């Protein structure tokens, strides 16, 4: 069975809550301490190289303090996370209040778009380039 609208919104709300909890837990640490104190990335833990998303928590924290250069340095993917963490609660609330499913439809549109070769190939290339930069920076 495909994901239903209500299940989708429940999972997404739970994911947002975990994200806020994670930021609260991590936010009290210095950026340099985060990579060593809470090493949740299995690739970083076992292979000792960062994954493409390593540093995105530090990037979100930098953006929360208005440090855009820091946000780019730690991981540009942090911008996406930051935007999602701000927008999703409002979007979910809007859909639930007005009994709409604009976010659910957007999710399916996003999936369909990303399945197209001309979108998927540049996206994969960007992720790989970001990964190489992450490894080079050793975040």
């Amino acid at each position: 069975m495909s994901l239903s609208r209500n299940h989708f919104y429940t999972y997404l709300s739970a994911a947002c809550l975990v994200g806020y909890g994670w930021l609260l837990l991590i936010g009290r640490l210095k950026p340099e301490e985060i990579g060593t104190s809470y090493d949740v990335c299995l690739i970083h833990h076992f292979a000792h190289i960062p994954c493409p998303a390593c540093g995105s928590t530090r990037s979100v924290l930098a953006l929360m303090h208005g440090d855009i250069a820091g946000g780019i340095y730690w991981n540009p993917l942090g911008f996406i996370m930051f935007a999602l963490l701000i927008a999703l609660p409002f979007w979910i609330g809007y859909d639930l209040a007005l009994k709409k499913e604009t976010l659910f439809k957007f999710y399916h549109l996003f999936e369909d778009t990303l399945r197209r070769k001309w979108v998927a190939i540049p996206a994969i290339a960007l992720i790989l380039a970001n990964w190489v930069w992450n490894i080079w920076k050793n975040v």
Partner: protein
Amino acid sequence: MDAQNVDMFLFANSKYLEDYQMPVIRERMLAMDEGHWRMLQYMQFNDPVIILIISLITGPLAIDRFIIGDVGLGVAKLLTCGGLGIWVLVDWIMIMGITRRKNTEKLMMSLY
């Protein structure tokens, strides 16, 4: 469709599909015309064991999710370091069942 062909197809692909859906799939296939047989013969399924191996090796990169067609969840898993590592562990247990479910959905869509 010919019952022998249907049974042969189900026997050959049983490891890719959900067991409890087999009677429904068989019934539906038997009701179909012979023209669909060629299309079904060329249908490709993801092997749950291969997906599990990919999940074990490249869990936080979400390649397993991308291969089975969960693009949105794959992006979410990739951007969150494999759901802070927890999603990766959960997928190691669940991914074979999810792959069979996806294969069954794909087959069902072609049967209806």
